[in-house]
């Protein structure tokens, strides 16, 4: 075995799977079917596929958790940097593999961030001097030096994810496995993470295998894409070829830019914004030069000369929100203070003014720690405000980030008894599952059931007069499930509910939202129609908006329409 104190940089495949078939205990169908794969040292591979296609199981097999921790039956051979993973197990593989799982809350085993990052080095027996240096370096690389002294139970989901990633990277492993590492990160942190991985890959020769649903975020950084379907490898090749394959095989795996090109009939399909712009330019489609987003309602954090004009715009954007008959919720001058660490208190929300009208769909966006979840919790009465006023027209149904927390019984009908329960189940399209055990439902169905529990008894006939708030509902969802959720949101809005959805997913926001409210450090920094807010920016902008840079164009359909209208320039 390689010296544990100095990670192996040997040549040869970083990961080899030979005819691996694996079934979880009590499962009737295998989670991996005859999977063969070679990942060379220094490769950056993207693992694509729908939910439950076997991506997470493949990553667990590569780090030894399958079968050592999960049990089950496995056939075939798995080697990681020359070590037999099936014989060795996760402990011995820890020297050469770093693994970041989907749920960051189960990936912290220490009480403070610095202790968490130090743990793998300490287990490996690294001397204290190198431990301190490694902690500093990985903290700087992931922009978390300010978190090092914090207790882990005071961190947000995004911060936890970065800490888990730091703990996985701190040993400088030869192979890094990541299972949707950006699912809880804001667009800025998500992009930074992908490019940090690319840098580690290029400079340190680290092999990266990254499972991700938001392909548009990482396709450009990848050397290779492996697509999985029903536990088997359905595609293995270059990113450009993958897009062509996805076009015919599974449109849910298409990126927005590729879909835009498909709609217009432009070839080749682009693997990123830069490639898309180059292709458009070479094919004679004129793309505007990048510009500062001046048309948006960006509100400064401080009082400024333009404040009066901005205030007018706020009023314009919020339209008739002042009318109590149309507002599902109205918030005025809301301040929330929270404890950070043991003694220090800070303002998490600072003077929020917000109204959501009945029947409107609003996306609440902003970077990690901006105050989105706190705002939703305050509206629902879980957190107390120190100042300000919340006026609710007819109650609020809040679905938090963990739908499983709402499910405490073993039969759906026991969770939602009587007429109000049946009505709520019908609204979310789950009336058929009355006798089911919630644990047997899929992730999307459990989410719908949890929403029904939050909605039960808040309806007025078929109408839903109050506010429905969802906190990061697309965590771990593939595009097909997101489309289902968009349908549900539209349905709830049609029934009269005001929808307020906190999300980091720009493409999802573009699909469902009429209006976007952007939070920054506890204040609203932008509030306007989705087509304006999600175009013209760098981070809080859709891929199509970044490609075309046309005001108000954020979806592939809008982009295709705009390209068809624009005259082509002659070469």
């Amino acid at each position: 075995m390689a010296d544990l104190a100095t990670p192996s940089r040997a040549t040869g495949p970083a990961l080899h799977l030979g005819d691996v078939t694996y079934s979880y205990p009590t499962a009737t169908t295998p989670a991996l079917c005859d999977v063969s794969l070679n990942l060379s040292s220094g490769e950056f591979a993207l693992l694509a596929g729908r939910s439950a296609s076997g991506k997470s199981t493949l990553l667990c097999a590569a780090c030894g958790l399958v079968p050592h921790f999960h049990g089950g039956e496995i056939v075939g051979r798995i080697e990681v940097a020359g070590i037999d993973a099936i014989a060795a197990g996760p402990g011995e593989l820890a020297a050469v593999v770093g693994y970041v799982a989907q749920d960051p809350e189960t990936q912290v085993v220490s009480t403070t961030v610095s202790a968490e990052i130090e743990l793998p080095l300490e287990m490996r027996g690294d001397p204290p001097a190198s431990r301190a240096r490694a902690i500093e370096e990985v903290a700087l690389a992931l922009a978390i030096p300010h978190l090092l002294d914090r207790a882990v139970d005071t961190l947000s989901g995004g911060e936890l994810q970065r800490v888990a990633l730091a703990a996985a990277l701190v040993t400088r492993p030869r192979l890094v496995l990541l299972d949707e590492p950006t699912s809880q990160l804001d667009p800025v942190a998500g992009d930074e993470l992908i490019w940090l991985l690319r840098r580690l890959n290029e400079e340190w020769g680290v092999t990266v295998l990254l499972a991700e649903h938001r392909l548009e975020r990482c396709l450009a950084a990848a050397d290779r894409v492996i697509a999985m379907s029903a536990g088997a490898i359905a595609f293995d090749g270059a990113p450009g070829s993958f897009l062509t394959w996805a076009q015919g095989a599974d449109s849910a795996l298409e990126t927005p830019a590729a879909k835009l090109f498909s709609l217009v009939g432009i070839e080749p399909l682009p693997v990123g914004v830069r490639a898309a712009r180059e292709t458009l330019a070479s094919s004679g489609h004129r793309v505007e030069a990048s510009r500062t987003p001046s048309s948006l309602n960006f509100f400064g954090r401080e009082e400024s000369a333009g404040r009066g004009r901005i205030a007018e715009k706020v009023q314009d954007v919020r339209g008739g929100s002042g009318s109590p008959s149309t507002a599902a919720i109205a918030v005025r001058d809301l301040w929330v203070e929270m404890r950070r660490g043991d003694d220090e208190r800070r303002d998490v929300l600072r003077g929020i003014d917000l109204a959501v009208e009945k029947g409107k769909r609003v996306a609440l966006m902003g970077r990690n720690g901006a105050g989105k979840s706190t705002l939703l919790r305050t509206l629902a009465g879980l957190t107390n405000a120190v100042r300000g006023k919340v006026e609710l027209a007819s109650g609020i149904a809040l679905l938090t980030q963990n739908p499983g927390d709402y499910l405490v019984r073993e039969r759906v009908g026991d969770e939602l008894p009587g007429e109000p329960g049946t009505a709520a189940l019908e609204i979310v399209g789950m009336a058929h599952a009355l006798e089911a055990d919630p644990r047997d439902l899929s992730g999307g169905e459990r989410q719908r059931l949890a929403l029904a529990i939050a909605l039960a008894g808040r309806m007025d006939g078929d109408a839903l007069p109050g506010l429905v708030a969802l906190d990061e509902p697309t965590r771990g969802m593939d595009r097909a499930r997101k489309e289902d959720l968009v349908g549900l949101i539209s349905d709830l809005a049609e029934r009269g509910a005001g929808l307020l959805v906190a999300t980091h997913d720009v493409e999802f926001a573009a699909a469902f939202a009429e209006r976007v409210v952007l939070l920054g450090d506890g204040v609203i920094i932008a509030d306007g129609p989705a087509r304006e807010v999600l175009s013209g920016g760098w981070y809080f902008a859709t891929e199509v908006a970044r490609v075309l840079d046309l005001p108000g164009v954020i979806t592939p359909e809008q982009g295709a329409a705009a390209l068809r209208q624009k005259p082509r320039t002659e070469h």
Partner: protein
Amino acid sequence: MRSPFAYIPRPRPLQLASPGAAVAYLGSLIVVAFLYSNPIVLLAVGLAVVIAGRLAGAHAAVRAALWMGLTLAALIVVVNALVVSRGETVLARLGEWPLFGQVDVTLEAILAGFVLGLRAAVVMVGFAVYSACVDPDRVLRALRPIAGRSALTATLVSRLVPVAAADAARLRDAARLRGPGAAPVGRAPLARRLLAGSLDRAVDVAATLELRGYSLEPHRPAAGATFSGSETSGKRCTRWVPGRRHQVIGRRRSRYDRRFYAVGLAVLVVAIVGKALGADAFSEYPATEIGTGAATLAVAALVALSGFAPWRRSARTHSALTKRRIASNSLPAGGGI
């Protein structure tokens, strides 16, 4: 919001002590609670753990555990009174009940239930003080030589309470967010869900621990590089001083260790000797007899006093003493003016 049982590092003796010393001290009190049935001694153990918790700054943990423990104790008293009909002093004859048969509520059954409940409450407060005052990171590291091959065991010992506390907070929030038409969350389904969920998550955390290399053979730290860290656990250490002995988190010693080991040992010795001398005199049935002899009172007094082991001389007292010493040292020979 943090759970009242979550560990918070504080510069207090119980938090600064090594996990072994803290466990020896708190464990000795819990052993006495199981060893004795005499309610005077049990009350003394309860008093000791409450004093220890408050001196360690774990006020919220003690309060929450007392509330939960006393609620459980009341439940045990009621159930015991209904289920056990032994005893000479019948307070009420409730007739024939389905499943229970003839139900006679006796004073002896109530007192026996009180003793059982008191023991449960004392143990709960003891564990709450442990959870709030003993650094789980250091426990995890201390367990490595013993449970290195079983990350799950280590996780259950060191992380189950924090994980369960975090889950409980989330489940409480979700219960408050249920619509008025949904079935209310009863205590039993919530407790079942909490236990199942916490165990599931503890298994996930154990998987992470495996991936961090917990089951690897422990390495001795290199001799050359050493560091000087503060005694407070979990602090970031970036100042490295050559020549001093390196101490990793799990092996860091505290000047309070000896005190806790000594008090823990003394409590055990007193309890065992007292038991041999009949300090645990107590019988529930047919008539309740509570021993109040000298041995019982002595054991109770010593056990209660052991609660002051986490006491730390305050800075004010310390500076006053120092000033007094300086003043006495600066007196001229002969002592008079």
